[in-house]
């Protein structure tokens, strides 16, 4: 044995040559162990039904309420038709909209808006109306029962505006494999012919 461990005392047994010391358990080890036990008992004070804690569902409800109170007031109607039409002719807004469309819409409407699962967005036929406000509304609240998601809660307001502007700008473009028209003829007022 090396010097520092002279106080180690070997126990008198040996198993296949393995021996054991009779050292005490390290103090800090014991203290932390007791500490965790005390903590474990105290923690029950936080469990609903047993202690005074409110529990995870109450915490959740509170967090939802707090977030609702914090939510900045939204413009209820969204941008007006003129602003959307103007944006649909603004190359930067359209470019931003194209990015959003590629990320979130092309899976269902095709990369060029020609329609796959969702309808063709390039023709003048619309199921839910082709006016800028109508398109904004469809995109914002979706058509859930038909599989068109609501994008208002997901995308940021700028992104919704941009993608609506982009959709309007698609009017009159010629996609590679257009889906047959659905709905009724309702071109966006003064729709610009495709500058995408």
């Amino acid at each position, binding site marked *: 044995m090396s010097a520092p461990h002279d106080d180690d005392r070997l126990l008198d047994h040996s198993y296949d040559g393995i021996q054991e010391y009779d*050292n005490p358990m*390290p103090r800090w*080890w014991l203290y932390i162990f007791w500490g965790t036990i005390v903590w474990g008992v105290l923690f029950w004070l936080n*469990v*609903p039904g*047993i202690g005074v804690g409110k529990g*995870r569902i109450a915490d959740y409800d509170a967090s939802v309420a707090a977030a609702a109170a914090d939510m*900045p007031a939204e413009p209820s109607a969204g941008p007006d038709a003129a602003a959307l039409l103007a944006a649909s002719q603004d190359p930067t807004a359209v470019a931003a909209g194209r990015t959003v469309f590629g990320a979130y819409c092309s899976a269902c409407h095709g990369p060029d808006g020609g329609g796959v699962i969702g309808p063709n967005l390039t023709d003048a036929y619309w199921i839910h109306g082709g006016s800028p406000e109508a398109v904004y509304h469809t995109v914002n609240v979706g058509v859930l029962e*038909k599989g068109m998601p609501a994008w208002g809660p*997901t995308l940021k307001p700028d992104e919704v505006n941009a993608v609506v502007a982009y959709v309007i700008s698609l009017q009159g473009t010629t996609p590679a494999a257009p889906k047959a028209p659905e709905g009724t003829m309702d071109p966006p007022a003064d729709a610009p012919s495709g500058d995408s």
Partner: protein
Amino acid sequence: MNPQLESFRYDDAIVRKFLWATFLWGLIGMTVGLLIALQLAMPALNFDIAWLSFGRLRPLHTNAVIFAFAGNAFFTGAYYSSQRLLKARMFSDLLSRVHFWGWQLIIVLAAVTLPLGFTQAKEYAELEWPIDILIAVVWVIFAVNFFGTIAKRRERHLYVALWFYIASIVTVAILHIFNNLSVPAGPLKSYSIYAGVQDAFMQWWYGHNAVAFFLTTPFLGLMYYFLPKAADKPIFSYRLSILHFWTIVFLYIWAGPHHLHYTALPEWASTLGMVFSVMLWMPSWGGMINGLLTLRGAWKKVVEDPILKFFVVAITAYGMSTFEGPMLSVRSVNALAHYTDWIIAHVHTGALGWNGFLAFGMIYWLAPRLFQTRLHSMKMAELHFWLATFGIILYVTAIYSAGLTQGLMWRAYDVTGRLEYPAFIETVMRLMPMYWVRVAGGALYLTGMVLFGYNLLKTWQTRPATYEEPVIQAAPLGDYEELAAPRPAGALARFAQAAWHRTWERLPVTFTVMVAVAVIVASLFEIIPTFLIKSNVPTIASVKPYTPLELAGRDIYIREGCFNCHSQMIRPLRYETDRYGEYSKPGEFVYDHPFLWGSRRIGPDLAREGGKYPDLWHVRHMEAPRDIEAKSIMPAYPWMLTNALDFDGIQSRVDAMVMLGVPYGPAVNDAPAMARQQARAIAQSIAAQGGPADLSDKEIVAMVAYLQRLGRDLGAQPAATTVGGQ
């Protein structure tokens, strides 16, 4: 004492067998691990082949490393050390062989059935019921052989390594049997007898204790034998051994529900799991302290000897993961880490570091003794050590960052109060560089493994023509005479604390009974309230059983292992409900045999998937996910569009569900016809949306039916959903 010595020989041939099996399955299990790591970074490597796809191979990887690699390593060390610690040859050479070949057969069966999609969908308990029965039989054979050896031992007292073996053998048997209880619905298909919340509880009671009693206690036992042997030092503290052994055995059993924080499991249960996990911290560290302090005065040797280096890293990794485990069990930490790669990093610190390195060190120490020659190359062992160490470091740093990154992205809000990353795929793409680093780390570790095999092979080649089997002599146990050897009085007093334990150590039956009592009592404290308290699972009137077609779809979901990537459990946390919808309620899962809550979100949660997309979306997404989501890492499932659905087979599945008490109504007699009817309706809607013309007899319609059902019952009017129309 009986003066007559008995002569006997140890059975080392069986140890050599287990040693090779350890290496072989380790190599295979880790290679599969590397493949699935690659698949996540490069989904093309799923090859569009069913039995090579991620969802089927991931369980193969986990089962292979846990039960095949770590299991065989435990058997290797246990067969070697038990005989020596008990001064007796194994009870029966025949049972030893049956155990060996039986276990390898189980592994082969697992390696065939898992890729073929036969699974119970419970993590680390995936194997189907006939294999489960075989496991139970082989385990009992092992137990008989082991306890038989104890019965004919020539050493009065049991050494601490044996305590850990006893605890492992007894507890694994209990866990395995009670988690796998199920009703067969075919030769390789069964449904858990538990449903939803209770099934989840049982699964994680099992799952966490598989970690405890398959990967921890057996390896602590191995440490207590091979570390003092290799270091040639006495164990640091006998009293510490006693306390940390019993606290581990008693406390571990409670910890399972910490896997289910914020789920539909009642809060008291997950809290119980949490406080017991925190209390486990020091008992676990007791093992680490006893290991590291045993090396006091031997550190110079550690520098020179790769075997001790392996042991030091193993014990350190054990200490790190048993600190991290309690930390992860704390609710607020868990909210961040759950469902992310953090957990994957955590288990790999344990598996690669603790289990892997302990096995490597042990086998390098054993090889020259078993093959009765010198180790071919110590240098190569040293290189193995460094490769594997850097492999672990690369792996875990990358995957910890991946876990933290994704966890933080999921909960990030922007200034407008919306989720910063509403598209799940953004949180996947960010992980790709880290997934490649993991591949590099895994490759290094595997390279070390190849060196290890080469070194073993070379060592084996220089073995003698016939192995020597030295004759051992020891006296049989006579009648026990109290205080046969008088001890100094002072020491006796000091020793008084542990005297009771000293008595138990010579009474193996008492000892084993005490272990079983500790484990069973602790389990019942949790299990009984979970099953009996009605308010744990408030009934929801609108929740109905799956239609026969949906049930068939659910079985396809199980077969493909979708639950390895998708959770179905939305937690009551605002960033979860904003992303996925209303949080999951316990009553929604009462017909879920087995539960499919999942534990990792490689893809998004699917608990409220129903109605989110049109049918055709799912068809195209299943056929080619990257056509829908260019950056998706989900495997493609084109075979679902061509495989015919086995309508007639659905009846036996419905029947099994009925046996479990699921109220099936008319479907009891008419499942196939009802399924056909629903399938036609879905196929029509797919065609109407512009999809392929007639899919009505293909598996995909069942899959779509199931996905479209998910999560819809909660809001449904009670009359709106009935089983397949009445």
